[in-house]
């Protein structure tokens, strides 16, 4: 593919990239703690090799796969995506990874597979946030996509960022990146992929259904009940210039993904 085709597909943006230090020291990864700097601070004991992923549910090739075996046949690509957090800040991050679609096809999902559910590692020994007794969320973290969303070419499984291996605070060794949805959909440190028939119960949706929908598509017109989503702070921002920009529908990927939601009421199915 030529560079122009690549850009038209939404695979990269020329917008200023967030500095590496910011993208790796300002994270929401509550398994390591709720503070933005907790993941970088508490990741040192995290072991991401060896790693395996259990594939189950409605598919012909269920099983437990070593990560290396899943990665070996894949073409690694660099994708530069906008990342929009539901908290109204955003970054631009160069990921390295491969399309989720190819991986899912390899597992030969059956016609009963309407959704894909993902699970993050649960290991309170390594993840101090999972030991918190005052947490409002249930572990392990679970996220999900509709099958057509999961098969979309923009949906990425990332194993690296900024030209290097992904770090634990960013979801090592393998995470999802769905650039047109709020960041919490892009589940980290994945240990299970399940093909399911019903819409899976996802972590934030269970914790606060009126605040976090299953779809969680970036949408400036649908406010979070506690704050507006019409604009965002593009990080890094500084104290006296917030670097506030307008938020765009589907985080600027409408051209690529709007057709997935044709006929849906986005204010109701948020």
């Amino acid at each position: 593919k030529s560079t122009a085709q690549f850009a038209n597909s939404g695979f990269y943006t020329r917008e200023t990239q967030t500095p590496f230090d910011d993208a790796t020291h300002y994270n929401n990864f509550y398994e390591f703690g709720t503070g933005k700097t907790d993941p970088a601070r508490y990741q040192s004991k995290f072991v991401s090799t060896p790693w395996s992923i259990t594939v189950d549910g409605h598919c012909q090739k269920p099983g437990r796969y070593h990560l290396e075996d899943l990665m070996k046949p894949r073409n690694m690509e660099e994708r530069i995506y906008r990342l929009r957090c539901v908290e109204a800040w955003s970054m631009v991050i160069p990921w390295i990874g491969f399309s989720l679609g190819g991986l899912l096809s390899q597992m030969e999902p059956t016609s009963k597979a309407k959704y894909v559910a993902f699970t993050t590692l649960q290991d309170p020994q390594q993840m101090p946030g999972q030991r918190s007794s005052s947490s409002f969320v249930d572990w392990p973290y679970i996220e999900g996509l509709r099958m057509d969303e999961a098969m979309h070419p923009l949906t990425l499984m990332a194993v690296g960022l900024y030209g290097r291996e992904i770090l634990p605070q960013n979801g090592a060794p393998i995470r999802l990146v769905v650039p047109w949805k709020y960041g919490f959909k892009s589940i980290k440190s994945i240990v299970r992929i399940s093909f399911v028939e019903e819409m899976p119960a996802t972590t934030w949706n269970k914790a606060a259904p009126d605040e976090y929908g299953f779809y969680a598509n970036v949408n400036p017109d649908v406010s979070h009940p506690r704050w507006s989503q019409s604009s965002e702070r593009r990080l890094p921002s500084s104290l006296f210039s917030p670097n506030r920009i307008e938020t765009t529908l589907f985080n600027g990927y409408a051209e690529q993904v709007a057709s997935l939601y044709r006929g849906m009421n986005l204010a109701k199915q948020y």
Partner: protein
Amino acid sequence: MSNMRYKIMVVLVLLMPFEFLVWRVVSNDLGPDPIAVVADYTGLWSIILLLVAMTLSPLKRMTGWSQFLQVRRQAGLVMFFYASLHVLTFFALQIGWQWLQLVEALTQQPYIILGATGYLLLLPLAVTSTNNWVRRLGRRWRRLHRLVYIALPIVFLHGWWQLRADGGELLPYLLWMVILLLERIADRFGLLPYRSQSVAR
């Protein structure tokens, strides 16, 4: 130590979190989203200082040391300083003096309404903290300053509402607030084991 020196010392101690914040700003240690950090920080210290200010009278009741009450005005004013910084952070930095954004926030975001209400309730208390106002208002001064019992839970709820996943961050302050309020009720009904000045009120 003279009375004046004692009061100045207390103010300086209560301002230490602010000095620490200034130091972090100067050394560029606030991370990629400094506005959010400053807003959280000044908000949290407003709540802590409000609790500190309201802990002085039970400390006085418990120990009989009047020194505690002598600095209540200072504690209250430092609290109001943090609260004002917090409001200013929201106005100037977060919404950039955009009135339309302010109107949107005040009409659509319940926790902003709560925060604004809390601040507006504390404002007259700060204004009437001078000796002049105490004299001028007489008995009404005391009644006016009971507004703090409405402001505290409102401000606390405003803070609680920002939490996303873990109540642990604010749990100690919730306990502190509940103990303070229970102590006040017990005092009111003369149920305290220690001598109270205010029973005969």
